[in-house]
């Protein structure tokens, strides 16, 4: 990697994490707009999908996230798409999974960036067209030491 990839900031012992995500923060409104586009105005029910993220994370640069939908994953009854949204990163979209029933299990794990404490929302679209959601608030701690 190159030296230029390191931000030339040396503020002292305390500095906020947000250097990654400075310019334009998304807002709950932009997240809601992105969700509305995904759901196409259909109603969303709570349940069937679970979102597993540590409530308190040590560094927002790498936050483990697991999303799982309670689905038999058969050709007749399966998940067609899962979308994850956030409300305070610069962009509301985090990740989308489009599984086929061949997976057998609708469970996905990845690591995400969170620029700040915020609400994360996951929505699953099933093969019958219904939409299911889960949401949770994740507290991102500010690292104490940031270097130049």
């Amino acid at each position, binding site marked *: 990697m190159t030296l230029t990839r390191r931000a030339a900031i*040396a503020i*002292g012992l305390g500095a906020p994490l947000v250097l990654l995500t400075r310019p334009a923060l998304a807002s709950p409104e932009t997240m809601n707009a992105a969700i509305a586009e995904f759901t196409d105005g259909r109603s969303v029910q709570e349940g069937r999908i679970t979102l597993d993220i540590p409530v308190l*994370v040590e560094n927002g640069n*790498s936050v483990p996230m697991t999303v799982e939908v309670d689905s038999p994953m058969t050709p007749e009854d399966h998940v067609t798409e899962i979308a994850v949204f956030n409300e305070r990163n610069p962009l509301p979209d985090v990740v989308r999974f489009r599984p086929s029933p061949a997976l057998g299990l609708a469970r996905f794990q990845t690591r995400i960036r969170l620029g700040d404490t915020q609400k994360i929302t996951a929505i699953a679209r099933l093969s019958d067209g219904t939409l299911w959601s889960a949401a949770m608030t994740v507290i991102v701690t500010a*690292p104490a030491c940031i270097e130049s």
Partner: protein
Amino acid sequence: MKRGGVAALAVLLTGPAQADERRSGFDYMGPETQLMQTDDMANPGMLAVQAGMRLWQETAGDAERSCESCHGDAEKSMRGVAARYPAYDATAQSAVDVAGRVNLCRTRHQGAEPLPQEDADLLALVSLIGLQSRGLPVMPDPDPQMSQWRSRGADLFDRRMGQLNLSCAQCHDDNAGGHLGSAPIPQAHPTGYPIYRLEWQEMGSLQRRLRGCLSGVRSDPWPYGSDAYVAIEAYLMQRAAGMPMETPAVRP
């Protein structure tokens, strides 16, 4: 050196009083970050190791030699090596850390330019070498020349620096386990370098980590490669004698 020798050396170098109370930075991390380190398939440091394995076998420099040309299989020849470093190099009349050793090999034996500090290839090779000591106890170089390096490192560790006027020891000895903001202050045992630091989002050396603290107290870091860093590395590794190596570690 045999196992008994390791234990004896550990006691000799650290004194028995510290032995029970030393904790790796690993112990201060949350379970998710710990799992990121312990699962080789989830640990981004293993990407550096993979790159290091490729580089180990690639020739470099005018001599058209690879690391492997001289050292053979890294898993055999490099076992335990990183646990001894920094070590004294009689020709250079200097203590060198593992990265410094790689660069000495490049200039002396490969006819290649030294790699810049924090160069991804250098970190990859040092990660590969470090992995071959994972789980082995830190076993500082017994060369008597090292003692002056360690005492210089101890002096620097205890010296207040910067506008905030703090020494390494004031945080990492006197206040280890306390919290600076939300961040727990670890005891400064460098058993896992190079580390994948979530803050950096890439691999980095102990020198980079030390520079971070120097900037944090509003001091000017020494240039990369300075003797001052090697001295502190040597001192810290002596304090960590007997603790298991963790390379490549993950830290917040």
